């Protein structure tokens, strides 16, 4: 069986996505404060080697689509005191996202 060099892009701009809740033992780049929250895909940034593999001497394959995801600050922080329109933009690899 050949392993795909890159995962196919699953989400479009504007797609609603939920960030998975996980804390694997290996290195990963999805901060805890966004996990479990729902946001909207702002843009596809590109398709990049998986840092969870690269960090442990792996080849980074299959590459993962990377999205800039927009989340509402008032969703992330119950006490948020700023403008309700304020958002947070964060880069998340596709395998950390599911359709919401």
């Amino acid at each position, binding site marked *: 069986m050949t392993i795909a060099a890159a995962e196919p892009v699953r989400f479009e701009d504007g797609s609603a996505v939920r960030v998975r809740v996980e*804390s694997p033992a*290996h*290195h990963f780049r999805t*901060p*805890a*404060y*966004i996990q479990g929250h729902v946001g909207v895909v702002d843009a596809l940034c590109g398709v990049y080697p998986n*840092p969870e593999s*690269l*960090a*442990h*001497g792996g080849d980074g394959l299959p590459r993962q689509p990377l999205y800039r995801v927009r989340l509402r600050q008032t969703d*992330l*922080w119950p006490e948020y005191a700023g403008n309700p329109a304020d958002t947070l933009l964060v880069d998340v690899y596709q395998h950390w996202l599911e359709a919401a």
Partner: protein
Amino acid sequence: MPGVHDRGGWPDDTPIDLTEHEYSDWERRVDAVHQVLGAQGIRTTDEMRRAIESLPPDQYESLSYYEKWTAALEILLIEKGVLTAQEIDAKAAQLREQGL
């Protein structure tokens, strides 16, 4: 419980210290050594992040920025069999004798 490096939203009332220091020679060189080793494919940025995150939490919070880079460099070079801790100890002792 997020890892010690995963700081987004951690309760932290400390005012941001706006003091800036001029980087010393050794700080600029350890930064450069990392870049040179990266260009040679000896270590990746993701491996370095993983090594920094693997530091005991008290060290992660107390070491300065380039002290963490040094610790990460040592972890990775030993792990990859490029250097041994004994070699580094011996070389450091020798440099101390030379007046460093």
